């Protein structure tokens, strides 16, 4: 016989209160969860830098017609100052077919002679115009490819996780096969094959990057759904009679999708980088189309004398680096905020 341990506890004391907390209007509007994410995002210096960079690029993309007024019908065609092959240094004056002078230039410098702000590349393509309008190209390709690969990946990954068994096995082996292909080489070949069919536009490269870029998302979504599926709160939802479709969309996906979302935000930088690599290798748009990789590719013949013509590599290269870095910093910040273990710490 053992002594009886009578539990003691006073039920009147159960009504505890959490410490009073002032709730701002913004928090009320966004809801606590979104507010917490927002607050986390603008907290660390790295994420602020990332958002500033991306913000600047967005501004450049939106105000491209003001920053660099288009010449001719097609704004994406980089204006040329003659056809000589030797690049001109930054600050050299426009000689032929001088484009419209942007209003900010006169206001800032007091000068009404339009110059090649960042110099020209081989063939007298103006680097400044190319970089400004290339920002739009970068956002366009980045978003199209990331959204498409994200959707394809999430759908394929969810199907795989939902049906499981043989379907899962087959799909995941297909993913494995795609993963074994060297990404840039495969995309290069696909884009090269597609170009004669579709024409020299952005489309072949975009299709090629989508074709070989969705597997990461599929794998991560599948893994996260499989792990979330086994959590107690999914079981709890079944116990209270929630229907299967609602369990999938209300309980499983919202808890499983966030790592993939972070991956996607990191992916924009990568896609733009790969796209530039394809352009650099000569796949994709017509010569003279405003696209960062293309401008870099003009430097190919001048690699041995870059000490003289540094500007044909430094400016487009720096733009690319800042763009990719911005997205990576944003992605890192997102990951920190969305990680459930970070909850309640901000």
């Amino acid at each position, binding site marked *: *016989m053992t002594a009886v*341990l009578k539990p003691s506890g006073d039920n009147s004391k159960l009504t505890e209160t959490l410490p009073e907390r002032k709730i701002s209007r913004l928090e009320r509007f966004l809801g606590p969860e979104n507010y917490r994410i927002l607050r986390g995002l603008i907290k660390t210096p790295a994420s602020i830098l990332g958002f500033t960079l991306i913000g600047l690029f967005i501004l450049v993309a939106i105000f491209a017609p003001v920053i660099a007024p288009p010449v001719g019908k097609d704004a994406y065609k980089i204006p040329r100052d003659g056809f000589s092959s030797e690049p001109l240094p930054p600050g050299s004056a426009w000689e032929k077919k001088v484009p419209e002078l942007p209003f900010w230039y006169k206001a800032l410098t007091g000068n009404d002679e339009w110059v090649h702000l960042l110099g020209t590349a081989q063939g007298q393509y103006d680097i400044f115009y190319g970089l400004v309008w290339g920002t739009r190209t970068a956002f366009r390709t980045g978003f199209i490819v990331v959204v498409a690969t994200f959707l394809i990946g999430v759908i394929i990954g969810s199907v795989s996780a939902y049906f499981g068994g043989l379907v899962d096995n087959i799909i995941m082996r297909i993913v494995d096969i795609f993963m074994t292909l060297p990404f840039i080489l495969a995309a290069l070949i696909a884009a090269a094959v597609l170009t004669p069919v579709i024409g020299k536009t952005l489309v072949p490269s975009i299709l090629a990057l989508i074709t070989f870029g969705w597997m990461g998302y599929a794998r991560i979504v599948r893994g996260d759904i499989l792990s979330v599926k086994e959590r107690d709160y999914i079981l709890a939802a079944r116990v209270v*009679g929630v229907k299967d479709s609602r369990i999938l969309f209300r309980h499983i996906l919202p808890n499983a999708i966030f790592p993939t979302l972070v991956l996607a935000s990191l992916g924009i930088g990568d896609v733009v980088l790969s796209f530039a690599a394809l352009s650099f290798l000569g796949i994709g748009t017509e010569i003279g189309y405003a696209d960062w990789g293309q401008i870099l590719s003009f430097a190919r013949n001048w690699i041995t004398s870059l000490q003289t013509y540094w500007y044909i590599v430094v400016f487009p290269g720096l733009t690319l680096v800042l763009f990719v870095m911005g997205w990576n910093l944003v992605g890192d910040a997102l990951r920190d905020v969305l990680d459930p273990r970070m*909850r309640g710490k901000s």
Partner: protein
Amino acid sequence: MTVNTSEVLVRVENLVMHFPIYRGIIKRQVGAVHAVDGVSFNIYKGETLGLVGESGCGKSTTGRAILQLYKPTAGDVYFKDQNLVELRREPMRLMRREMQMIFQDPYASLNPRMTVRDIIGEPLMAFGLASGKEIDRRVDELLDLVRLSRDFSGRYPHEFSGGQRQRIGIARALALNPSFIVCDEPISALDVSIQAQVVNLLEDLQKEFNLTYLFIAHDLSMVRHISDRVAVMYLGVIMELADRNDLYTDPLHPYTQALLSAIPVPDPVFSEKRQRTVLEGDVPSPVNPPSGCRFRTRCPIAETICAEKVPEWREVRPNHFVACHKV
């Protein structure tokens, strides 16, 4: 509490739950985990049946199989004379209004991306019992019931302590006015001081709504406090089932005796005097359970017959069932 023994609410008959083990590329079944191996008992209306045993003995699996969260390998579960095992998906979903569950881990059983209001209101929405403002009103009522402040309804689970979360889970279970609740170790993840609060809350709610509990736990003192009858499980089989006082004062099965002697006593004098049965070795693997009596490998009084024959489930005294050759 007196139990009306005439009315059976839940009748479990020979419940078997095996989890198959697959190996190799072609996923050949190479064996099965015998989580629950032929369990039968009744739960009477308004009572609390305690289910105790070591971890891994199949307590939780039994609770989940009763609620049809696992499809039982064999056996029947009758709820108000309706065999749940035969029900298809949708009729079973509708039956869930009557039977609910409280989970062990209050940190894992609440969706971290839903507010308290959405969590508690979800069962109402699932059955279309309320909408809009009506849900708010009902959620407030339920929060009152589990003694949480109504101001909490807009908050997220991570803002609460373990005890508070467990009460959110209880409120969710109560939302549909069930008659039967499986409490799957509802207190073992909580601090001792909070345990008492939650147990008392469960008792108050039982009185108020005439609830029937299957209370799964491994804390013997707590089970003794809350249960009317207690079943002792070992390796997927129930070893002994009796009224609470009967079982605790006069345990018949050697396993029950060993378990009870392991309860720490806050009295050093008594503690030294009492005779303790200390079990040796580990629980055998449920993949390959011992022949005959499951407990024979660790039983201090086992004989040859224990290895040869599965002991019969007998009522040795009124309302006192034991499965042991030596009793």
